Each structure stands twice: as structure tokens, then as C-alpha cells.
């Protein structure tokens, strides 16, 4: 127990032996406090795992049609079969494997979409924030133009024009989402510019690359990673939406959750599982990523860090 009569020395503070049990309890408490973030991370990892290891998890191919076993219900219902745990669709394709392989598309769209949008947006936003003045105003009005329009409308419009392919979808999202990254980056760059430490680094003689990497980038990374998580979740959403309208990857090339929903929509009343499972997959992924994003936001915000300890 600490007492006030003996002066504290540094040695005495280091005296406490951390047993293994202490470490486990400390870690456990950390997990519990941030349990929602941990859940989000686990969900995300499950999705990644499913996507990457799909061929090993299921031996069914997502593209094989087998009209004899078409329209089978999930395994736990009558007429179901554990060979097709989630049942089959109207052409006999196994839904479980399609959900797993569909995760690949969703993740790719999300990941690359965010990479493109993030890179583009970051460059544009950084230029705007750093240059200031008229260039900033010009860039930002362009950004605001794109942001103030009904996003969905234009995504759909563009997708309709460009035609169906995975690359198109990624490009569309990458470009249309860049403004959001631009705006956030610009805001952060402005904030960093205003705060004193860049000035003090410069006056202490630091050179530009060092300032960029030691001071500016670390502060940008936090909000941008958080934003990237949310936007990735949104892109998975929107891809599904496009697929639903038949504007995403054509269903015979590749299963995506969106086009599974579109296909299943017709059979909603008689064979509801065809649309239910992809929808659940989307929800599951979205939920996990939103939880993760919320947690990241709390953890990476330097102001919050102090009060969280």
C-alpha cells in the first residue's frame, strides 16, 4: 500500500512483480472494456477467413449448377441436406459456398475501393488543406458538389452506363468515395497546420520528409483508418445494392452477395432462404465493421486516449 511518509523512489515503483496471472487479468479487463471493438474485430476476421479459406471450408463449387438439387432448403429443415448447409438456389448452386466466395468479392470491392478512394482523396485533400487560399476553395467546391448530390443515384447511373464488371464497380466506388476522404484529410491537415507543433518542428530545424513522416502522417492516419473502416462497410453495402439491381458482376461469372439477393428476390415467398443468407452475411459483415470502426475511432483519437488509459 502506498503511504505518504517515505519519499517515493523510482526503484520502488519497479518493484512490483507482474505475475502471469496479473497479465492475464489485465488483458482480460482490456478485452472486456473494449468488448464491442473486439467483437467487431473478430467478426471482421471471420469474414476474411471465410473469404480466404473458402475452398477449404466447403468442397462445393459456387458456380456448379445441378438442376436436380435445385431449390433445396437449408440443412436443418426437411428435404435439406448437410451437403448443402444453406440450401441451393434455383439453378442448384450451393448457397453456402456462394456466400463464402461472395465474401471475396465484397472484401475486394471494399478493400480496393477504399484504397483508391483513400489515396485519391488524401492527395487532393492534403493539397487543398496545405495550399489554402483559392486552390483550396476551388478544390473544396468541387468536393462539395459531389458530396451534396444524391450519391446513390449517381452510383447507379454510372454503373448503368459503364456496364457490369468487378473492375467498374471498384472504380466507381473508388472515385465517388474519394471526396469524403478528401474532406476529412483537408480538415486534419488544416488542424495540424494550425496547431503549433509543425511550426516548432520547423523552427527546431527539422527537414521536410521528417516533418511529414513523424508529425503529419501519424496524425492523419488515425482518422483516416477509422474513416476507411466505415467506408469499406459502406462499399460492401452499396455493392450489394448494385448487385440487387443487376448492375454489379454478372451472376454467372462470380457470386456476389448483391446478385444473390437479386436472384433470390423472385423466390422470396416460396424459398426465402435464397435471399436471407446473403442478406445476413451483409448484415454480419457490416455490423462487425461498424463496431470495429467505432472502437477504432475511440482508440485512435488522441484526445480520448488520455481519459481511457
Amino acid at each position, binding site marked *: 500500500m*502506498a*503511504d*505518504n*511518509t517515505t*519519499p517515493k523512489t523510482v526503484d520502488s515503483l519497479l518493484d512490483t512483480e507482474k505475475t502471469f496471472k496479473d497479465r492475464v487479468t489485465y488483458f482480460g479487463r482490456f478485452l472486456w472494456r473494449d468488448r464491442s471493438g473486439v467483437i467487431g474485430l473478430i467478426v471482421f476476421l471471420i469474414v476474411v477467413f471465410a473469404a480466404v479459406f473458402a475452398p477449404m471450408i466447403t468442397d462445393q463449387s459456387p458456380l456448379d449448377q445441378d438442376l436436380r438439387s435445385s431449390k433445396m432448403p437449408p440443412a436443418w429443415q426437411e428435404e435439406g441436406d448437410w451437403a448443402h448447409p444453406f440450401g441451393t438456389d434455383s439453378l442448384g448452386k450451393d448457397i453456402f459456398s456462394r456466400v463464402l466466395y461472395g465474401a471475396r468479392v465484397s472484401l475486394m470491392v471494399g478493400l480496393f475501393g477504399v484504397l483508391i478512394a483513400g489515396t485519391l482523396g488524401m492527395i487532393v485533400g492534403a493539397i487543398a488543406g496545405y495550399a489554402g487560399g483559392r486552390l483550396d476553395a476551388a478544390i473544396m467546391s468541387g468536393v462539395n458538389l459531389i458530396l451534396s448530390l444524391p450519391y446513390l443515384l449517381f452510383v447507379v447511373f454510372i454503373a448503368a452506363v459503364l456496364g457490369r464488371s468487378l473492375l467498374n464497380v471498384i472504380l466507381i466506388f473508388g472515385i465517388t468515395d474519394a471526396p469524403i476522404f478528401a474532406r476529412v484529410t483537408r480538415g486534419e491537415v488544416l488542424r495540424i497546420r494550425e496547431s503549433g507543433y509543425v511550426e516548432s518542428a520547423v523552427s527546431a530545424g527539422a527537414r521536410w520528409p521528417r516533418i511529414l513522416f513523424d508529425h503529419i502522417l501519424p496524425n492523419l492516419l488515425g482518422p483516416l483508418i477509422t474513416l476507411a473502416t466505415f467506408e469499406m462497410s459502406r462499399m460492401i453495402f452499396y455493392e450489394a445494392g448494385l448487385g440487387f439491381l443487376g448492375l454489379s458482376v454478372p451472376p454467372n461469372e462470380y457470386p456476389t452477395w448483391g446478385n444473390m439477393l437479386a436472384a433470390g428476390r423472385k423466390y422470396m415467398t416460396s424459398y426465402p432462404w435464397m435471399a436471407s443468407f446473403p442478406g445476413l452475411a451483409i448484415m454480419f459483415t457490416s455490423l462487425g465493421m461498424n463496431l470495429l470502426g467505432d472502437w477504432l475511432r475511440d482508440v485512435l483519437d488522441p484526445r480520448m486516449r488520455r481519459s481511457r*488509459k
Partner: protein
Amino acid sequence: MAKILEVKDLVTKFYTLDGVVNAVNGVSFDLEEGETLAIVGESGSGKSVTMMSLLGLIPMPPGKIEGGTAHFTGVGGRHDLLQMTPEELREVRGGQIGFVFQDPISTLNPILTIGEQIAETLTRHKGMTKDEARKHTIKLLGQVGIPDPELRYKAYPFQFSGGMRQRVVIAIAIACTPQIIIADEPTTALDVTVQAQIVELFKQLREALDVAVIWITHDLGVVAGIAERVLVMYGGRPAEIASVDDLYERPQHPYTLGLLGALPRLDARESKRLVSIQGAPPDLLLPLQHCPFAWRCDFAFERCWQEIPSLITVGERHETSCFYDLEKGAPRDV
């Protein structure tokens, strides 16, 4: 002179996730009618918390008042503030005790006119109609030195400068002719020239209204300008209470000595190094078991580490909580 506030052994603690913060560890002082008392101390000394806990202005979880009495003699007689119900306290706040806070831009509601913000105390405590309140507010604005009060009534806080905003805050404080004004670092956020104006304003108002003032600050220079008596706090304890003259001429507590020595003076003949008090502020998370200043005190001896010194009288209305007699240069025999 009659005493209007008698605080005895106030203890306030905050129960936080990091532990129990012993913010106020037994503070006692008196305030007479029309008297100006300055409460001086560093950040963390407990000077703000003391006054805020008396009036129920600290967040009650995690804050908790664990001891003491605070008898306020107001319009309804002599009552213990710490025993009052929230409704009773609400009558006192604003109506009999007014407040001036530190940073006038954040103290005022940005989307209400300043006239409205002053008038609402009048309608609340004096039962005035909106029209009466408006007229009275305009008078108040004139009193605190705001030009064109009829026009300014409808203005918003962002349209004023810092000094003007603080005048508005003062107008709110004096609106219901309170017995006490509690000013918590009212000039700290202002420019030095504006500071002087505000201090002047206070002096005028206390003359005109015969109101007692408790001026909380860390700036001893301001104290000399406005206070009649001073309470020096350290580590949540009262270090010394005295009249301003006594404090400056015969400080009895080593902390006071340190504070005075740290004051830069314009009339210093030779350039003297500013004496800073060695050491760091006390850790309020640890329960107090001895004199909080012992770590940093040049005169500490064994007794200082074993007991908490209580206030002892060392002159006329001059008390200190120290076991060492600075004038004699030896421990006291108390």
C-alpha cells in the same frame, strides 16, 4: 461586522475510476458582510472546488461532500448550505449568491441575447415581468459600463469583446443584489489592461452594493489590488488566513513565504532571481496523513510528517496551519 458565511471543516472528495481524489481536506474560514476575501492557491489546491461544493455546483457523482458545515446568513436566516435541499439551494444561487466565472465566451450561451441571459435571473428570483426585467437589465448594463445598453440588450455574446462579455457576466451576478459574489478567476482569461478595468469595476460595485466578494485566483498581484483578507490554500487545506497587510508583512506559513518570494516586483532594486518553490504539487489521490506541504517545505521537521496541522491563531484574525514558527525560527509549542 456580522458574519454572513461560516465554513467549518469542509471535506469534499471525488470518487473516480482512478481512485478517490481528496480535493478539499478540511477547510474553514469566515466571511463578514461586505468583506472581500481572496482565495489563493495553485491549480489543484481546492480553491474552486471549495466554493462550488458549497453551492451544489460540483457533479455529485463522482463528487461527494463528506463533512463540515457552511452557515450562510441570508434573507431567510442562518442556514447550513450543506444541509439544504436542491430546491433551497436553487433559491440561493443567483438570488443571494452570484457567480462570475473565468472565461466569458464559454460562460455565456452563444445563441441567446445577453439581455435575455441577464433578464432570466430577474424573472426567476425577483418575479419580474418580462418588461420590468428588460428595463432593469438595461439599467444593469449601464451600471457595469456597457455603452448603449438599449441597443446592446439584443446583442449576442459573440458580438462583444472579452472585457465587455465579462461585464455582462458581472451584470448577471449582481442582478438580484446578492449578498455574496463568488468570482472564480474572473480576470485570468483577459488581457492585462482589461483585467485592471474589471478589478476597478468590482471595486465600484462593491462600494455601491455593499456586497461581499470571494475572489478566487492564483495571481497574488490581483489580490493586492482588491482583497481585504486572504485565504491561502494548499493541497486541499487552508495554509493561512489573514488580512492582506498581515499576509504580506508577516506571513506565517512557509508556502505563503514561497508565493511571495516568487512574485516579480517592479520595485526590486537589484535584479533578484525569482524564487520558485521546489518540488511538485501533491498527489490528491493519496489520503492525507500529514501536512501536505511537507515535501516542499524548507522548515519541515518530524512532527510535520506525523500529523495534519490544524489552524491556529497567530494574530488578530490571522490563522495558519503550520507547526513551525517562522518568526521565532523554531517549532511552535502548541
